[in-house]
């Protein structure tokens, strides 16, 4: 944390009031709030926000005291939560604290940014690879040249009889939708190589 006066995690006024309200209900103002990343999965990141007694803090914990209560985080969670925002929501379907964390935005929710190659790489990471990973495969960007995307397929995709289908029916459509500037996609995988290809290299 570069600036100790700046909260590592921002509590909205509503969230802050809720914490203070819960503390009052507990009859004590010495409670602290532990914010923890329970699961950093980009598919569905989960967070735990709990009231703790002061003696439940550890010496390694990152502590911020600027809201009228202490915000306590394990060092690993503190790193993942830097810049996150805690809000309180009340809707018909859910009520509770909601964490908006730019570091762990769920897959598909991060806007693509940067150069053409960067955006293609982000689209592969966010949309393509989670899908092909279910089949034991992965896709890597080799290069973008003259708006043509050159890809390499690995794992279960390398040598798979359906690789061309995955490319033309899946990957190409996703990349063209996410990065409309691209003009073509080429698979430069050596499908005869790899650990267990369906096709062996021609002799």
């Amino acid at each position: 944390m570069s600036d100790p006066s700046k909260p590592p995690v921002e509590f909205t006024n509503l969230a802050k009031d809720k914490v203070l309200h819960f503390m009052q209900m507990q009859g004590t103002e010495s409670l602290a709030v532990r914010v923890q990343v329970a699961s950093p999965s980009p598919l569905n990141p989960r967070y735990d926000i709990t009231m703790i007694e002061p003696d439940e803090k550890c010496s390694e914990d990152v502590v911020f005291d600027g809201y009228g209560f202490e915000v306590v985080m394990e060092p690993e969670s503190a790193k993942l939560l830097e810049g996150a925002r805690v809000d309180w929501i009340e809707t018909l379907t859910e009520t509770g604290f909601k964490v908006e964390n730019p570091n762990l935005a769920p897959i598909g929710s991060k806007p693509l940014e940067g150069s053409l190659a960067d955006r293609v790489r982000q689209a592969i990471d966010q949309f393509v690879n989670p899908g092909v990973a279910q089949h034991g495969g992965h896709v890597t960007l080799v290069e973008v040249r003259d708006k043509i995307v050159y890809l390499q397929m690995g794992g279960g995709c390398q040598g798979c009889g359906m690789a061309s289908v995955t490319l033309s029916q899946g990957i190409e459509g996703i990349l063209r939708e996410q990065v409309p500037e691209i003009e073509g996609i080429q698979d430069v995988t050596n499908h005869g190589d790899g650990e267990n290809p369906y096709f062996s290299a021609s002799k």
Partner: protein
Amino acid sequence: MSRVLLLLSRTSYRAEAFVAAAHRLHVDITVGSNHRQALADLTPGGALTLGVGDIDRSVASIVRFASDYSLTAIVAAEDDFAPVAAAAMVKIVSYHYY
């Protein structure tokens, strides 16, 4: 654009050639296969999973699919799928014209 249902086995060596041919003919394709396609969830209409060796179930899946996505033709890339393609086409044609 016309849409062709291409029936392929997961281990087919013909997939690349059939897909390339479809692109040259500028037809949309749906790949029907005995295994669930990678990225099928993200490409609606692009893939259809069929029962292995169960012609009736496969035909029913194709007829259901055809009610959402109009099919111009069903092409079996493998002999194993030829009865499915024929039976499904008969059902779809009967449904539309009789």
